[in-house]
Structures are given as C-alpha cells and as structure tokens.
C-alpha cells in the first residue's frame, strides 16, 4: 500500500525545465528520503506531488487517489521556505493554522501544549514568531506540520538551523511518528540523517530520478570500488589500485575501473604480505551522492 505514487511527472516554468521525468512510490509507514543537489527539482517534485503545481505530464496518486480538499487535512507539509505569521504570538499562530486543518481550537491547544513542552518552547508561546530565534522558528514550523496528526508528513529540510540536541529531538519525533503509522517524506542535503532515518531514498539530478531504492541495496550496489587493508608491513604496489588513502588505522585502496576486490586480494597474497585486515569498503551516502551527481555514475 502506497501513501504516494508519482509516475513520470514533468514540470517546467517558462523555458526552465524544473522536473523532466521523475517516478517513485512511498510505502505507508516508511521514512522516505528525497535527495538531490540544489536546483535538481526536489521542491518542485514535492509541490507537484502535493498538487500545489499541476504537472505537464505524468500522474500522481496521494493517499490512494488524486489530491482533494479533504485529503489536505491528512497531510502535514513543511515547505522549504518557512512560513508562519511573523507578527502573531506563537501559540495563536499555531492554533489558527491547526484549525484550518480541521482540528478544533481547544483540541489543537491541548496537543500544542505537549509539543511546546517537548521542544522547549512553552516559555515562548506568547512571543511573536519574529521574536524567536531561527532554531526556535524551525521547531515551531515542525510542530505546525504535525500538530493535526497527519497520515503523511512531507518535510523539506527538517534539520536546517537545528543544533545537535534539537536535531536528535526531531529525529526521535520522526521515528515516533513512523512507529505510530505515519509516512514521512523528507527532502534534505544532510546525508548522515538520511542514513540514520530513511528506509528508502530517491536521488534526483537535473530533474530526473537517478537513484531509487532501499538504502542497503544502493550501498551494496556502490560498494566494491574500494577496499580497506591493514598489513603488518609496508603496503606494496598493487596493480589496479588508483589511489591509496589513509583510513583510521588502515589504508583505503581506490580501485580502477575493471579491478575487483578479489584481484587486489590475490595480488597481495601473491606478494606474501601479512594481512591483518581486508574489507570491502561500503560507501557512505555522501560518496554515492558525489559519484552519482558529479561523475554521472548512476
């Protein structure tokens, strides 16, 4: 069962093609990562998915069908460019926006009290939004996104302006929402958070999907291009190794195209070295991102 299904969508603004061809599906109850360099079309993809923009091509199904006014109440969205009433007191602002999502004001106020406490904002609820720090405003924005208990949460860059403690707070909250059955689609540049939180990812580059699937599978797919080696003595020259990098107490050997880890192992054994460690290096998401985006290695 999918919370969102996007199939071959395209969207342009004038002569600029923001999204050329993107397809993906988000399963109910998962945390899905939407990645891509700046200007790759992530935000436009999210806006098309949420029916803010109509696509020129392709289809979108959200919560089991086309977008409707009723479904808006079941979705929480935090846009890339934050939006709260700057001149309104925090509590009034969040309660008002929750009522627009169909939550009675009294109920919204009750939910809000708990979230304000949890995010250390209770003492600031009477302050105008513009009087809050950037980090506080970010937390307020996150609360606004989930206050009405949505089934589908779509968050663009959730960790911007947050310190490590608040980052952890938000990560815990996202896991908690997932455990309660909510689906989360998260667009971010912070690969470490994606690695920790996401079950599956989609990488968009230049308006096209270039990488899509389970994180583990993708990493396996991109492993084998490097090995971690620790020897008793000095590392000899090995054919097929392009570069040697220090890596903790070992060496990371970057393999040339066509060279496999088995080739390197055989070459080392042939030179009678005492091998203390030999491990196929699993690439980080950062490395995969760079390889896919900069080197076009999809």
């Amino acid at each position, binding site marked *: 069962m999918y919370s969102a299904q996007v199939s071959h969508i395209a969207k342009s603004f004038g002569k600029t093609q923001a999204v050329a061809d993107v397809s993906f599906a988000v399963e109910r109850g998962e945390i899905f990562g939407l990645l891509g360099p700046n200007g790759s079309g992530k935000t436009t993809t999210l806006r098309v998915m*949420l029916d*803010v923009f109509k696509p020129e091509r392709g289809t979108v199904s959200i919560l089991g069908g086309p977008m409707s006014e009723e479904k808006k109440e079941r979705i929480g*969205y935090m*846009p890339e460019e934050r*939006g709260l*009433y700057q001149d*309104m007191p925090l509590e009034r602002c969040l309660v008002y*926006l929750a009522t*627009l999502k169909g939550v009675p004001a009294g109920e919204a106020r009750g939910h809000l009290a708990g979230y304000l406490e949890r995010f250390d904002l209770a003492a600031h609820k009477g302050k105008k939004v513009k009087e809050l720090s950037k980090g506080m405003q970010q937390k307020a924005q996150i609360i606004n996104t989930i206050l009405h208990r949505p089934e589908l949460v779509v968050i663009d860059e959730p960790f911007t302006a947050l310190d490590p403690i608040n980052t952890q707070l938000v990560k815990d909250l996202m896991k908690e929402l997932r455990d309660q059955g909510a689906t989360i689609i998260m667009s971010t540049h912070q690969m470490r958070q994606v690695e920790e939180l996401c079950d599956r990812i989609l990488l968009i580059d230049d308006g096209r999907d270039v990488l899509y699937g389970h994180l583990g599978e993708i990493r396996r797919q991109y492993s084998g291009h490097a090995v971690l080696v620790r020897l008793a003595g000095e590392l000899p020259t090995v054919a097929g190794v392009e570069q040697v990098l220090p890596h903790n107490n070992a060496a990371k050997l970057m393999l040339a195209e066509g060279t496999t880890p088995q080739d390197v192992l055989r070459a080392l054994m042939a030179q009678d070295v005492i091998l203390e460690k030999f491990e196929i290096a699993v690439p980080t998401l950062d490395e995969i991102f760079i390889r896919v985006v900069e080197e076009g290695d999809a």
Partner: protein
Amino acid sequence: MKKMYLVLRHELMTTIRRPSFLLVAFGIPLLAVLIFAGVTIVRGGSPDSGVIPSDPADASELEVQGYVDQGGLISVIPHDIPPGYLIAFPDEDHAQQALEVGEIVAYYVVPEDYLQTGDLIIVSPDPSPFSAHRQDGAMRWTLLVNVLGGDAELADRVWNPVNLEVTNLAPQPQHDSYADEDCSKPGVACESSLLIRYLPMIMLVLFYVFITTGSSLLLRNISAEKENRVIEILMLSISPWQILTGKIIGLGIAGLLQMAAWVGTVYVLLRMGGGTFNLPAGFEIPPSLLVWGLVFFLLGYAVYATLMAGAGALVPNLKETTQVAWVVMMPIFVSYLVGLFIIEDPHGRLATGLSLFPLTSPTMMIMRLTVGGVPLWQPLLAAALLVLTAILVLRAVAGMFHAQNLLSGQSFSVRRFYGALLGRA
C-alpha cells in the same frame, strides 16, 4: 464554509488589533472630537449649544452688534431684525467704548461714500473670519433695505430674485430634509454654512479614502503572506477560493468598522456642534443617503478589494505594493480628481457617465446623491452594474489565485496583471 469563516475571523481580528488600524479608525475621529471640544471650550461655548436658529427673530442666541452710520444712510431697522440687536452709535468713540465694556461684540462703520464704494468696516476683537461672516448678514440686510428706501419687500426680491422651483422626476427627493431649508433670508445659518456647501466634496473624499484604504489592506495582506511564505501552508490547508473570500469579507468588515467610526464621529459632531459648523436647524443627513452610502461602499470595496487581491497574487514582495496599488486604483483616483472639478455640475453628462461606470461609480454616485436630485434609476443601475462587475472580477481573480502566481517571484507588470484578469495567466 467553516474554513472560510476561520480565515474571515482571523483576518478581521488580526486587522482590528493592529495599532495602525486602531489609530486610523478610532484615533483620528477621537482627535477630531477632542479638537472640536477644545475649540468649543476656547470659544466659551458648550459643545451641546445646538445649531444656530434659522429664524432671525429668535434673538436669544444672537450677539448684539453696533453700527456707526457716517453717511446717514440707515433710517430704518428691518422689522425682522430683533429689537436691540443692532445699536446705532453717533461715532466710533462711543462704539469703541461699548465694545470695550462688552455691551456689543462688534460694530460696523458705514462710511460716507458707502453708496459709491460699497465699503463696510467691521471692528471686532474676535479674529475668527468665520464668526464675523456668521453674523454680518443682519448688517447687510439692513443696508440693502435702507438703500432701497426702506422697502423690505423689494429688498427681499433683490436679495433673492428668483423662487426657483425644481421638479424632481425621481420618485422620492433625495434631500428633502434640507433641500427645502429656508435660506432666502440673510443672516440665516445655511447661507454661510461651508459644511453643507462642501458636503458633496467631503463625501467624495471620504468614499475615496474608505474604498482605497480598505482595498489596500488586502493587497498588503496577500503580498505579506507571499513574502513570509504562509501562503504555501494555507494552500495545503484550504482552497484558494476560501482564502480569497475569507480575506475579502474579513477585511471588508474591518473597513466597514472604520467607516462606521468615521461616519459616526461626523454624525456626533454635527449633532453636538451644529453651532460651530453653522448648520441650519433641523439639518440631518438623510437616511436614504446613508443606505446608498453603505451599498456603494460595499460594492466599490468588493470590486477594488478583489482587484487588489489579484494584484497581490502577482506582486513578489511588500516593497512593490505601493506602485501596484496605484495601477489598480487609477480609475477611482481619476474619478476622484475629476469629481473635484465637476462638483459644480453634478448632473452633467460627464458626472452622470462616471457615476454609472462601475469603476468610478462608488465615489461619483455618492457625490451626486449628496447634491441631490438624482433620478432613482441611476443609483439602481449603477449598483446593478457594480454587482455584475464584482462578480466578474471575483471570478477572474479566483482564476489568478493559484500556486504558479502565488509562489512566483516574478516581478509585477501592468500587462501581466491585465492579461491574468483576462485569463491569460
């Protein structure tokens, strides 16, 4: 419907809590009342002293004046000047002494060569030109009667040479309450009431201010929401139609409150301070004018506020709103300027045409209705055309209220605005 109401309530409450709104809506009228009360106190009167009596025989509120007739022209005081109101003095010294002891409030000197020059000198310790103007009618009347050899009837005909009878084809006269006011007698208040004379112009200015300020609130509101990006959150919560109608009605009620505060203040001042404004007895703003005022304000606001909302959807930031407001408000601004020039010919072709054309009728029709004598079919037709225009504009602007415009950072252009209104964006 419920969400539209939530937007409406939010916009209304947010607006009326704003200090700038409170200042304009209530601060300015309050200031006017305070200034009026201050002037009244300084002048030694009381704010509820009432209007000046239209009957010159009622001397209870008239102040005694004197005159020095150097040419021996005045032989008779007209019978409708209250006895003892105009006191003759043999020379200026005696008149000056009477003035100093407070026996009289002012005196006139009629020079020997009055018949050749028409010169009349008034000596008064009160520097206000309005107070002098207010009561010199009695002296003028006395002079006229005496120049005509004491024939009061002839003098009356010269003063008021025609009894103009106007046949109004409208089913009901617009200003029956003061159109029949007896202004034929000199010294009667309405002869010199600037307020009544300029009431059509005042109404023109007031309606221009009400409609433009009310509509501008909407432009600023929408462009502010675009700038702080709340609009994207709103679009994921409610429909653009609900946003638009909620805002128009909410801010319209705020505008109506402002108008009520201003009109209420004007009403209170007129009731309290008729004397200060030199209004005739029985003067009142006719209820029909108030009803038409409400109709034309609401319809004019609906058209211009909706246009402003459309412009707001296209404006990328708050900074550009001032220029954009001018583009949208140009028709009503032009009608306001033209109205100031054609106020003397309120039923001419230009004034009639502008009062029927929907983008100019909210101010021009009110000006004409204040003057009076407008056939009933004209305000009815103007209102019907305004309703039609409001519906068309609302439909066109609702079409502009979509994400492509609301989230765009594209700069505003007149061409793009009118293109969008015609459904080309």
